[in-house]
């Protein structure tokens, strides 16, 4: 009653069948089914998180060759899984929930570790069942720059951050971060992260060698959450982190030290844009390329209270040194933007209305390149190789 479970039995059955069907040997060499390998790692490889809300317990990270926008693989994200690549891009970490019986039963949370080249699971690290069952915004999972520690945002709904030691593959501790959200690791050291707080300040937590908190310090106010809140997405050049506000301010802070230091502030919205109420919008509404100092922002006109996640009518490019707008191109409804990590980057986006992926060239000028639709159901976050 066990059927044909072994490969040998299967092969035997095939042989029988081939003889039964009067196979001609001829000049044909029978094929063997195999498992494909991913193309070699490439700066244009995209990791696209998809919450698949109509089957929210079965989210996905689509892996796409951005050179061609061809689908090359997928890993399952589970129930509101939060994904992030390791600093060396060899591993994918997914903090997620499994329920014992699919949609019911005991909740188990873990960080799943996948090999980013084979897409096979390498480790399952148990964590407290508190991971934020949230959309996969950038910053809800992060690592130290040496790859040693993985940080996971929790919500019960109280906010805390789980620390995982990748080296020992063990849960380390949970750090309370009441009223704050997101994980912005220091980049020159590997024992520190900052989180954005609801009063507009930044809270920096320093860790000891084992990953336990050894101190914390709060910055002066970065922004006024009542008047002009910042998106939770951040981009950075080493320890200089950039923030974007609902009304188009670009804020900055240095997160390398024990206390975050607030930096310059400027606006992407010129006088003439204010008339039409241009505003940023989306889930990952901007991208930043340090090498070329280019900031790309998803913008829509006639912005209003509640429009802060609206799709882009245009993408605006800025020189972050001069604060000048250097390009504006059609936005293709983008709600997420990311640039490749290469000297002359390419810009990628998500159009949620068609589950489409977008590629723009950035040189010699910002220019729309390609669109392919149908990448899953609810893609909202891009991470580049």
């Amino acid at each position, binding site marked *: 009653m066990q059927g044909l479970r072994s490969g040998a039995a299967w092969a035997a059955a095939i042989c029988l069948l081939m003889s039964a069907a009067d196979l001609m040997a001829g000049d044909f060499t029978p094929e063997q089914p195999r498992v494909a390998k991913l193309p070699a790692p490439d700066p244009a490889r995209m990791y696209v998180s998809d*919450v698949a*809300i*109509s*089957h*929210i*317990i079965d989210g996905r990270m689509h892996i796409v060759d951005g050179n061609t926008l061809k689908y090359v693989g997928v890993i399952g994200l589970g*129930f*509101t899984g939060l994904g992030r690549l390791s600093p060396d891009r060899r591993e994918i970490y997914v903090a997620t*929930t499994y*329920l014992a019986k*699919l*949609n*019911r039963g005991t*909740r188990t949370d873990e960080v799943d570790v996948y090999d980013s080249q084979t897409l096979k699971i390498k480790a399952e690290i148990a964590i407290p069942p508190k991971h*934020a*069952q*949230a*959309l996969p*915004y950038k910053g809800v999972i992060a690592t130290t720059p040496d790859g040693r520690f993985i940080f996971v945002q929790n*919500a*019960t*709904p*109280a*906010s805390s951050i789980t620390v995982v030691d990748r080296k020992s593959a063990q849960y380390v501790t949970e750090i309370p971060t*009441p*009223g*704050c*959200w*997101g994980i912005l690791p220091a980049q020159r050291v590997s024992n520190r992260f900052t*989180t*954005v707080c*609801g*009063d507009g300040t930044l809270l920096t937590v320093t860790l000891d060698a084992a990953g336990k908190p050894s101190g914390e310090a709060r910055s002066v106010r970065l922004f006024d*959450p*009542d008047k002009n*809140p*910042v*998106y*939770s997405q951040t981009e950075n050049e080493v320890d200089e982190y950039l923030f974007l506000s609902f009304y188009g301010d670009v804020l900055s802070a240095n997160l390398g030290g024990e206390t975050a230091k607030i930096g310059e502030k400027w606006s992407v919205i010129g006088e003439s844009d204010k008339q039409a109420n241009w505003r940023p919008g989306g*889930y990952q509404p901007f991208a930043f390329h340090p090498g070329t100092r280019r900031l790309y922002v998803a913008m*829509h006109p*006639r912005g*209003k*209270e*509640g*429009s*802060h*996640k*609206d*799709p882009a*009518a245009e993408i605006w490019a800025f020189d972050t040194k001069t604060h000048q707008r250097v390009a504006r191109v059609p936005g293709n*409804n983008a*709600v997420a933007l990311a640039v490749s990590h290469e000297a002359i980057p390419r810009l990628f986006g998500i159009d*949620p*209305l*068609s*589950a489409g992926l977008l590629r723009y060239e950035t040189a010699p000028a910002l220019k729309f390149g390609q669109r392919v639709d149908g990448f899953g*159901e*609810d893609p*909202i976050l891009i991470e580049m190789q």
Partner: protein
Amino acid sequence: MQWLDDFFERKTREVAQLTSRRSALLKFGKILIGAGMLFPILPFDRQPQAAPGGHGGQPPQDEGDVNKDTTCEYWRYCALDGFLCTCCGGSINECPPGTEVSKVTWVGTCQNPNDNKAYLISYNDCCGVTACGRCMCNANIGERPAYRMGVHNDVNWCMGNKANAYHCTVAVALGIAEARPHA
């Protein structure tokens, strides 16, 4: 992008009315945060509501009826982000059979066009059953990132329940905020 224009043009007055109310809510959020206790949270967010084609199986929706509780434009849904329980076997304030009501939630304020009053609305998720998948809506008036958890809507309200799976969202009227909302 016409859908966005239409949607927001219709809501212009409402937005203006709600803006200062929202400030009050945000302040309240701070009080809770200051006390080390976070106020409950919001439903899942997603792509804009005008893209029902993004899913198979979306029933056709009458756009724009502020008095029809199976459309995204129903007045109580001004800050609802999720599947309408009215399309899933529930009602405006009842979870569908077999689910349970979320223990935690957040409260929005919506203008009732029939009496011109602003109502406090609790957006409870219904929990413990496979996602409904019908009538996805996404409205973000007053919504803020998760550092203001009390007014953030991109997390699962069912997180506080043992029955953890998200099914759909109801809009329960808790009270009248003011006779005439913030001018």
